[in-house]
């Protein structure tokens, strides 16, 4: 029974959370307004449900059939909500899932951070420190065997990036033995905030230093997936880009956590991903993708997935167009340092072994990383699907994300534009700028070294 605490910071983090939790419940068979529960087959519901929900000890999970049962038994999501205004958090307070969130785990009414990383990290962080620690400690106390924190926030604004990375460093200080996974959204392509490059760069430095694994997501990649892949499917007639983009992130998180929530003949717990995917310290940014890309459908496809369709899924999930960041894992700029394939539903061991073979011939590797492929199988497919596949890559192409951030950052910083907004905040050292630049450059250098060390094909 491994447990994870999710911490949602800022508007973006809470929006993702607001679709994530209903989807998790849905996968367990609980739906708002429904009175019966369609149990997924072959799961150890009893033990896996604890991973993401705390259940008071006098209850048996097997007895729960409806959302009302969960509410009645005082079941709470292991989740901490942090936001400046009530706007998004208030949805949690009023929606059908409201009683699943512990009021004590909501930190709100927090004044905005003015799209300024420094305000979140240097001012509000220390100011709210005790309150945050209290809330985190309460959530931790409810766990028997806490495996990790999962942080969700955006890198562009002030709250997500500033306070988010502040919480990350708090966790690193106070819970050094608990893994820290971060899924963060880079608002690339839609940088509506002028100081966004600073925020991204300053926050990224702390991700490099304090996170166990980072699953970065780029807005422009989400946008392209939605417009170029999803909306070409004939089944979709109504366009809801924001809904669909959030949904992509939610689905990725669902796949990622599936091994911790359900059983499988080759179980992949999230904490195994760190050991398998991170060959050297600091190189812990992983590109994620999954297939099929669809909206949740209303009914299950009639038969089991054919070999051909499964193979297509695998190929799509390795392709550039399915990655949640703008890189091509099998392209010319990519040397793979680690790969993970997690099949859900109909995938078999032999399928996965075939895919590993394909991957090993298609991709480029260092002389030691060709065999660095982790394979997982989870029995339970996503809702309304018979199978799905998640792939994670640790690739040197991640360099392009860092370069891109650095490029945007330099454009501003060369003119020292808006720097005074940061330096005026007490606790912000002007050295933070050069330090984050060094940190980014250092990581770019590490990736370049790896690329040069690759094995000639």
């Amino acid at each position, binding site marked *: 029974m491994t447990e994870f605490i999710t911490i949602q910071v800022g508007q973006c983090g809470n929006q993702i959370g607001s679709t994530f939790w209903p989807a998790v419940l849905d996968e367990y068979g609980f739906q708002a307004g429904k009175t019966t529960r369609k149990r997924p087959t072959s799961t150890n519901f009893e033990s896996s449900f604890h991973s993401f929900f705390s259940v008071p000890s006098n209850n048996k999970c097997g007895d729960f059939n409806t959302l009302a049962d969960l509410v009645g038994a005082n079941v709470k999501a292991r989740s901490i909500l942090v936001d400046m205004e009530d706007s998004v958090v208030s949805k949690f307070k009023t929606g059908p899932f409201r009683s699943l969130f512990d009021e004590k785990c909501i930190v709100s009414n927090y004044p905005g951070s003015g799209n300024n990383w420094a305000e979140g990290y240097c001012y509000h962080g220390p100011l709210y420190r005790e309150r945050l620690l209290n809330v985190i400690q309460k959530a931790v106390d409810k766990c*028997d065997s806490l495996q990790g924190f999962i942080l969700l926030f955006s890198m562009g604004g002030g709250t997500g990036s500033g306070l988010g990375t502040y919480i990350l460093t708090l966790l690193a200080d106070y819970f050094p033995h608990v893994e820290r996974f971060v899924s963060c959204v880079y608002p690339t392509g839609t940088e509506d905030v002028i100081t966004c490059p600073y925020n991204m760069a300053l926050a990224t430095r702390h991700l490099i230093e304090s996170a166990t694994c980072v699953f970065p997501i780029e807005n422009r990649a989400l946008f392209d997936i939605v417009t170029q892949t999803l909306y070409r499917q004939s089944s979709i007639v109504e366009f809801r880009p924001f809904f669909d983009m959030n949904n992509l992130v939610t689905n990725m998180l669902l796949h990622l956590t599936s091994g911790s929530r359900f059983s499988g*003949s080759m179980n992949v717990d999230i904490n195994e991903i760190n050991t*398998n995917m991170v*060959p050297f310290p600091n190189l812990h940014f992983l590109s994620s993708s999954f297939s099929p890309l669809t909206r949740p459908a209303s009914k299950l496809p009639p038969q089991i997935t054919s070999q051909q369709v499964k193979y297509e899924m695998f190929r799509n999930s390795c392709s550039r167009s399915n990655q949640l960041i703008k890189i091509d894992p099998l392209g010319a700029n990519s040397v793979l340092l680690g790969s993970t394939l997690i099949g859900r539903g109909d995938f078999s061991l032999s399928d996965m072994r075939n895919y590993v073979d394909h991957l090993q011939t298609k991709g480029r590797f260092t002389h*030691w990383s060709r065999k660095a*492929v982790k*394979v997982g199988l989870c029995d339970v497919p996503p809702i309304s699907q018979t199978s799905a596949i998640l792939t994670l890559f640790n690739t040197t192409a991640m360099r392009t994300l860092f370069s891109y951030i650095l490029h945007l950052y330099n454009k501003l910083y060369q003119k020292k534009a808006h720097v005074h907004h940061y330096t005026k905040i007490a606790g912000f050292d002007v050295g933070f700028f050069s330090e984050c630049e060094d940190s980014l450059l250092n990581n770019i250098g590490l990736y370049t070294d790896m690329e040069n060390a690759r094995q000639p094909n």
Partner: protein
Amino acid sequence: MSILTLQFGQCGNQIGKALYEELYSDIKTDVSKTGVGKKANVEYVTESVKKWFTVNKSGALEVRSILIDTESKVVANVTANGHYKFRNVVAKSHGGAANNWAYGYTTKSELLTKDIQDGVRKEIERDGTVLGIMGILGSAGGTGSGVGSRTLEILRDEYPKKLITGVVVLPYKRGEVVTQSYNSLLTLAKLCNVTDGIYLYENDTMHKMCSKLLSVANVTFLNINSLIAQQLAATFQPLQNTSVWDIHKSLTPHPIFKLIQVKSAPHVSKEYLKFEAPTTWSVLINQIRNSIKPDLQDYLGKFNRRMQCTGNALIGRGSTPFTADDLSQIADSALYVGWVPSQYCLSNFYHIRSFKDNKKFVTFLTNNNYACLSLKGVLDDAWTLFGSRAYLHHYQRFNIDEQFFLDSFDAFETLYESYKGL
């Protein structure tokens, strides 16, 4: 004389589960198919039950086994069985060992070993019949390999005179877990030191057996595990006037050579079985002889030495004993290293009662130089990673430093070279 099994991690627990299913179905085989009379069958069953189970006050069978895992998911699956009970489950659910031997060995084991030791002590003191302890584990992950290594090391200290063996399953060469070569290396280096013998299995070999001999189209771990379980059951079920020590003594004549490979016959798919003629020992032994030779294409580099064994044991279960003619196929002195006296080269054991519904079933335990091929795969992969210092920081976090690795490499290479040089 009984055997206590310790099932470590996901792989160990799955094989353990399959093993007791196999044993139970052997015990429950219809007496008309066993080739012996009712009385003889009862004797056999009684002995078998004594060996693997205990009977509790209400008459139910309880397995002489301790289930050890850091995640309760797999253990929960194993314990769900109507025919017999699992008494001992040590699963402090504090999360898995993250595919990291060091995490299992230095950290996770801290939480578990005291309970395991208590469990083992209770089992041993229960009726004083426990002769051997058999640890079953997969070497790829962190729990089985790390916690397993540490536990057997501790038990070795506590029970210097018990027969402690390991059943170690090596992962697919093309990878299940990225750090599998490190984990396998550290496991084997440790276990060769602390156990009396290691039954070495490779997923690749078993996979091939399932697909080629049993014609399984989509091989799963279930197939592989039940094959391993079948071989273990057929080896360790009761034999006339023989204890596990007798089998074991003949196989490991030298403290460095402890790796035992298991072959068995017949293995045919159920479809073919209908058309098979009654078989003879010499046919089966011939099949085994052919299966010993590994498919050298699977292995990197050339290895064209003849097979050299330090000791073999043949176990037959069926209506007639082996004749000298049957044995001659594998008794050839050219097969054996010069320093083993010829009378100790090949030992054979026999029981008249059939194994399950096989009229004749033979298992062959062999300790030979081809073991170096399995070792080489692990060694090469581990050196490749270690050469770039890749993944070491995960191990250092749990107090396994470079020096520890170098010492393990050293021990492992000695083992490899010794087998290669046979």
